[in-house]
């Protein structure tokens, strides 16, 4: 996607993964608490 630096790619990947974690955690625990 036009970006060569693996450190920037890792940042992109972690942003997506942490957002996915938030989505999955929220869905799994939607009615818990």
């Amino acid at each position, binding site marked *: 996607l036009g970006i060569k630096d693996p450190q920037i790619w890792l940042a992109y990947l972690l942003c997506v993964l942490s957002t996915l974690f938030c989505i999955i955690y929220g869905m799994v625990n*939607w009615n818990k608490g």
Partner: protein
Amino acid sequence: MDNIFILTLILAGYLFVIGYLGYCGYRKTKTTLDYLVAGRSIHPYIMALSYGATFISTSAIVGFGGTAAFFGMGLLWLTFLNIFVGIAIAFIVFGKRTRHIGHNLDAHTFPELLSKRFQSPFIQGFGGLIIFLLMPLYSAAVLIGAARFLEATFTIDYNMALLIYTLIICAYVLAGGLKGVMYTDAFQGSIMLIGMTLLLIFSYTKLGGVTVAHQALTQLSAQVPEKLASLGHTGWTSMPKLGSNFWWTLVSTIVMGVGIGVLAQPQLAVRFMTVKSSKELNRAVLIGGIFILMMTGVAFTVGALSNVYFFNHPEFGKISLLAAGGNIDKIIPIYVNSAMPVWFVYIFMLTLLAAAMSTTSSHFHTMGTSVGRDLFDRYILKGKKGSYSVPITRVGIVVGVLITVLLGYKLPGSIIAIATAIFFGLCASVFLPAFIGALFFKGMTKTAAISSMLVGFLGTAFWLFFIHQKESAALGLCQFIFNKPTLVGYPWVVVDQIFVILPLSALTAIIVSLFTKKLPREHINDCFKHVK
């Protein structure tokens, strides 16, 4: 600006909706029963956006967006920390315990929570004083971000823009108080979500698509000014050179300072105590994660990509920093006004107004309660209920606003991200070890909490006045006493205090806890009742 009249109409409509939502919130909290029912049935979308809209301000969009235009896409590491630390860890790990212990101790403010947990009135007064005196630095950064966009959009004087914005927000905070803040925050958060989504789509479309835009930005690395390259700048799609001046500033001040500092923000931590159940915290994680990705992720990506737009535009023909005359804070306002259709400029204007209002209203309220609740109630009324604390809180809000506006006029250019990072870093070093101890370590002592807060505060002050060159040179005390701008050499002059003072503050808390008197067991049991 083609049509000021249309923009004024949109602005009036926006303010009308804010007023109406504030009124709705007021109507729904008339009785305790209403308050409890509304609390249980409140939609998690409102809860999450209220937190997110308070967290994300014009500082993030204008200040840090401009910083991304300067440093490049390395700022996406901050987006990762904003989501993982600022949402996931803050809500799941810190939020639930803060809520339980806050309720157990009947705490209404962040300093009050720490004070009651460690049975120390000093902590409440000291914490309240720090918030009241230093939060205006962060609030001023938010106001400057809003005023810079107003200046570029209406082509009016910056000082006038700052005054107009402050008057609008001040009227809203003083008239509305806390009533309906969650509804207005959610409305403002929704506008921010729409505005930033459109900004991302338009920016990539304007630059020919995702891959083409990134390739063009990568190829711009040859345009990095020689002075910046000598400091470690390697281009806008790569990290600065490891260990260079730029690398330390990006990693220690911008990424770590703000990324970790969010955990000890008083105006955010107090929101966990007003949530009615931990179920809402679970639900808010989902919406909060998406919201923060769309706010900071978009602002930092578009900020970096603005270099391609400015360089290819015949009117500018240079990188963002030079196109904005060297002022980082002007990059996003100039980019949006120049690159986007007029109707989107209106939308973005509302996006920034919403971002500024939702954050600043919480700041002003937190400053007010630090005077009314943490200082006046604690030290003058000695904890007794009185009728003077609310007027004192209002006086605190007005004085806080005045300090903020004064800073808004006096602070230099390119200051938004730096001022925000200083406040976040300070909160981390002063409050975070005591906050973690309060929530997770029953053995942490009163003396340890006070010691770590004092080490955090004095250490940060020493670092800013005598070590970190950017601030020590500007403040001038080191030059006055020692006849040189800083006491140390490279790399310490560019290492942020959070890398040194926060570990020192945490170490102080641990060591002092080992050698000082523990808190009574009954008190600890009261604090941790219902805490799993």
